[in-house]
């Protein structure tokens, strides 16, 4: 089912009308194009704001996390369909 990953990733994202939209990300040697951002939610961890992006491509679901204070992206979990 869900696989916990927690790896740092490189993300190509856009900023549109106050929203962050991840378009593409690189995890290890793999590169994935985000087909759809299905849900965005956030969490305050102490003073830091974390944003979670539940995204999918043609065959996989991914949960990406953006730590706004550290400007870091992580791949938190994934599921192959």
């Amino acid at each position: 089912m869900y696989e916990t990953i927690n790896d740092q990733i490189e993300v190509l994202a856009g900023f549109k009308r106050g929203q962050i939209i991840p378009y593409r990300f690189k995890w290890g040697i793999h590169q994935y194009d985000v087909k759809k951002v299905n849900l965005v939610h956030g969490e305050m961890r102490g003073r830091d704001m974390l944003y979670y992006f539940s995204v999918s491509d043609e065959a996989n679901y991914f949960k990406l996390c953006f730590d706004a204070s550290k400007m870091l992206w992580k791949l938190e979990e994934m599921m192959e369909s």
Partner: protein
Amino acid sequence: MILHIDMNSYFATCEQQANPFLRGKPVAVGGDPRSFHKGEISRSRTLIVAASKEAKKRGVKSVMPSWEAVKICPELIFVPGDHIKYKWITDKFLEIFKSYSPILEIFSIDEAFLDVTKTAKLFGGAENIAKEIKLRLKKEVGEWMTCSIGIAENKLLAKLASDLKKPDGLVIIDENNKEKILNSIELIDFCGIGKRIEARLNRMGIFTVRQLKDCSYINLTKEFKSYGHKLYLIARGEDNSEVMPYYLLPDEKSMGHNFTLPKDVWDLKEIKTVILQLSEKLGRRLRRKNFAAKCVSLLLRYSFNSRVGEKSISNLRFDKPNFHYFHKQKKVNYWINDGYEIYKIACMILEGWQDNQSVRMIGIAVSCLSKVNQISCLEEDNKLKRILKVSDKINNKYGENTIFRGAYLKAEKSKILMPKALKSPVSFMRRSN
């Protein structure tokens, strides 16, 4: 005019919104009983927290043991619960509701009442508001999110209306269809008539809403005391209760936390370890809301096997003599909001525990709450308060459990640690006792 909005299969729908590969499939939020491996924590005792509409069609229900759900629906997909996600989505849809009326009562994480009596005409009527809410929910939260909305003159009928059509329903109860609907439903369909009340009504020879309506006020109050008055109104579709806006909610009267252990526990030390974690959590919650308590209660629920055989597990869920338990409380004559104080009082209660049973769930609660800002005359007390204040400040800034009691490390060792109890131990509090 009141709207009752009920999100359909809420937690499971949130998961299907996040992950489109789960859509159209039977999904359950909860621990997967099939993920049991040697050495790993057993989840076979977990319950279904929420089931998707597809799972519900297959007979899977909320609060059903996971193993039982798998038996009914072997292709059931289990997804771990993510309460941060659900709370975030709740806040988002509540914002939508608030834009139509400030008189919003948050009934639960996935249900709300909205009084639009004074604002309906601004938006083209109550029905129009309901339709707009449904559209905005899909547009602003997610296309898979649906809700059932009931519209009526009072909360009782609005709730009843939203329950009549699921998922994605919109039902209006007005003077034209009120009698017809009331006569077509069962007693248990009313919010306020549960299985026990229904059984008592049945014993009085009342099986239908019509029969309840025909029952005299005197007979109802004779049997149910003051609740008889409520039943008298329910039978007539009447409800005088007002929508209580979220900003006028009364202060909490008690607070509590329960934890179902990953395995049955006999050892007093392990039980105390969990009590400490629960107490700390409670202390933090009390201080965050500027409350202090005078009463602590401890609940120990025993395992299935303590007194009854495994064979009767399925009966136990539905029968009255559920699990055996130990429940006691202790009142003190001073105000407490320190987790360690709560823990010490719970340990005093525990001294009276002589059942020697294996424990499966531990619960701690505090009551007799008051907003207290008393300064103690004892320097030692004030010192402890200052330490708590600083540790709260650190945890507020850097996240929960950035700083914690050294005793927590024992919990880590014993592997009876509540989920997300600890991050990496950056530093920890020491205390001289």
